[in-house]
């Protein structure tokens, strides 16, 4: 069994950190996992993305071209990467920055005003944790605690206040998903 998540957004939105945490969380659950980012000049100015693949067997390729879930942080990334989502896949959009959702699509589409929620929490930067919270709720393979541990693995040199903020953001996202 394999499960693929693709996360996409713009340079400063914490896309890669987000993906790393999902990967770490999977690893901590003893899943096979690969994480593959976009790298180099592609990052500059434009959109960035990464792909996380979970599997219970040996993973052949880290390349995700038919993701089970696509998390998009803004509209350009939606346009650029929608084709990487499989027909019946989960699409989570940051409603604050994505205004035009795909039409006549077979996807399971969710929206969340993540940037606004983050801003309300005090920093747009934690938008990525809000989005992650939403995703987490849809992902039985990873527990909340597992995800929190993974956050510690990735954010190693972090101030307690920011750590708290990240956790709140995660919880807000989870809560939004449940509501």
């Amino acid at each position, binding site marked *: 069994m394999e499960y693929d998540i693709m996360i996409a*957004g*713009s340079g400063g*939105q914490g896309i890669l950190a987000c993906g790393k945490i999902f990967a770490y969380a999977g690893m901590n659950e003893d899943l096979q996992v690969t994480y593959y980012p976009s790298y180099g000049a592609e990052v500059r100015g434009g959109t960035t993305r990464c792909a996380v693949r979970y599997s219970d067997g040996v993973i052949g390729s880290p390349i995700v071209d038919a993701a089970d879930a696509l998390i998009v*942080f803004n509209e350009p990334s939606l346009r650029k990467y929608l084709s990487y989502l499989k027909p019946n896949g989960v699409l989570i959009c940051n409603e604050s920055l994505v205004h035009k959702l795909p039409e006549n699509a077979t996807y399971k589409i969710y929206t969340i005003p993540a940037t606004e929620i983050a801003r309300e929490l005090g920093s747009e930067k934690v938008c990525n944790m809000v989005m992650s919270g939403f995703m987490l709720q849809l992902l039985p393979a990873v527990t909340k605690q597992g995800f929190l541990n993974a956050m510690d693995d990735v954010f190693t040199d972090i101030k307690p206040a920011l750590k708290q903020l990240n956790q709140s953001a995660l919880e807000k996202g989870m809560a939004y998903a449940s509501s």
Partner: protein
Amino acid sequence: MTEVKINCDRCKGCGLCIVVCPKKNLKMSNDLNQFGNPYAVCISEDECIACCLCTKMCPDWAITIKDDKTVNKKQNV
């Protein structure tokens, strides 16, 4: 009258034009452009003195200034 045109899709929201405008006549938008960044907007074209300091500063050649007087002058030549 002066026309201050800011191409919101070229603009990356660096804010440098805002800092240099002597009339404090530029500000950042509240919403985001299609690339996900806020962009500079002119508060009031009437206030603009067509000094073009903003265009000199812009790293993304996103601003054009058209000043009637100049345009007329040019037409008179």
